């Protein structure tokens, strides 16, 4: 029980990261790789937020009337994740754009066949 309590989020976060990595390592299709990247980034975001969590803390937003003295979770990871999400979507959009162009050139997105540049 305590194990779950302590580690459920971490398991989720790193589970996502590892599954994302496995997708990148074992799948061949470019879109699949991009999905893997997105899953991995979600996992990382989850990990960051989980680091900042404080037991029984509240969201770091002050209501209009005071609210002083309440325990609030760490706002820093949240700010970081906000940035990371945007960066992630920027990278993935770029990747998708390239995938579209690449498909135009090669007619396939199987990375096993897209290896003209080697050695």
């Amino acid at each position, binding site marked *: 029980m305590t194990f779950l309590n302590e580690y459920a989020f971490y398991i989720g976060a790193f589970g996502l990261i590892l599954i994302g990595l496995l997708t990148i390592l074992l799948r061949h299709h470019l879109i699949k790789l991009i999905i893997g990247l997105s899953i*991995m980034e979600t996992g*990382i975001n989850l990990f*960051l937020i989980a680091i900042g969590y404080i037991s029984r803390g509240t969201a770091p937003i002050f209501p209009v009337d005071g609210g002083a003295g309440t325990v609030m979770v760490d706002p820093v990871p949240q700010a*970081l994740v906000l*940035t990371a999400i945007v*960066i992630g979507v920027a*990278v993935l959009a770029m*990747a998708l754009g*390239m995938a579209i162009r690449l498909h135009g050139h090669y007619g396939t997105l199987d990375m096993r066949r897209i290896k*003209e540049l080697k050695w």
Partner: protein
Amino acid sequence: MVNPVLLLAVPMGLAFTVPVIERITGRVSRWVPVAAMLFNLVLCVRLIPAVLEGPVIVQLGGFVPPFGINLYVGPLGLFFAGLIALAGLVISVYSLTYIRTGPLARYHMLYILLLVGATGVALTGDLFNLFVFFEILCISSYALVAYNGDRAGLESSVKYLIQGSVGSSMLLVGIGMLYGIFGTLNMADIARSVGMVDQGVLFVPLIFMLGGLGVEAAIFPMNAWLPDAHSSAPSSISAVLSGIAIEVGLYAVARMVFTVFGISDLFLFLAFLGVLTLLIGEMCAFAQSNIKRMLAYSSIGQIGLILFALAVASGVTVTGGLFQFVNHTFSKGLLFLSAGYLIYRSGSMEISSLQGMGRRMPLTSLAFTVGSFSLVGLPPFAGFPGKFLIVRGALERGGTVIVVLTGLVLLCTILEGAYFFRVVQALYFREGISGGSGERAPAAAAVAMILLMMLILALGAYPQFAETFLRSAASDLMGAVEHVGSVL
């Protein structure tokens, strides 16, 4: 005193204005990078006296570190900012005429932002901020590598993107772990508290960050993207990527190892890794028949050399490594720039098709020759002082392993000499093949190449000038305690 933050803010603002400028008049946008980099260069020169007295700490938003983000403008940061501005200026002059097709305004925007990203990495004193600037650097280089939109460019760009994203993710995981352990993101703050934590725990985040930054720095097992990307990009971008992007990556690695973690146990391993990178890079370059791919592999080799120099971690070798940074930026920049027009003229990247170019494009061939001589480390070009300092420092430091590694480094120099001289011979001493377009390098490109050649010669003949500054940059890099003291 001028505020160093302008080094980032002004080019960024200029890049933001390009879309509107492009809408109004299409011809001005290509001058924006020139203006931005010229501004940066002037600013860097004006900052030199202040920085030599002591590092300038910029508290962004007016919040004291570690609560706000701070820029740490020490001699090292300023050195990189100046180098980026100088190389960026020369290469942007070159691109004035080199880039003539495609969405030009977007090229120039991305180009400025790439340099802004690099400058930001060099100046920032905050881990997450480092990550953000790295992303600016990387994403703009993904786009620029694919700028030509040809098969090779897209293929290499997408591979670069995937590896780069995995690297960035690893970096972010590492940063997250560090935040979990220390509860802060400020480099100086972490460096201060690093001694109070069990060293074993720190190792995993360090390795994650090393792996992530290693992708950008092209350290051996992580550098597979480099030959593809650098050889497929437009030549001006290859020059920036080789001359600036990977060097900034290596700077970040050094910053982590020296300042943030301050662990000396790994130095020997890093020196070994550097020599391995050097060996692999030079050996692969030796086996290439495609000139840009050869230059790209040679960049891997140079990164290995510099990593070795930094990892030996004596004052002299670090100075030498920084000197090699300068030399590599100028020489590899010059090589890529000249190769750009050689390829343009001959219509092929094969070395065999460049035969006889010495007669058809004398200036460009001369530039290539100077660049390759300098990179091999022959006097009186800029490569020699750097190599001399590295060898001298490594031997001074002594130790069997280091001496053996130094020997390997020099063996690699011979290999490097062999393949560069082969190209020089092809340019001048082999019978030419006619064909290709009949165009000479235009004035802007010639100006850029002549400027770089003069810089290389000047540095080779009077290294003292750079060395005095680099020595304080080296002590800036190695002095973690001073770093902490000046920030907090």
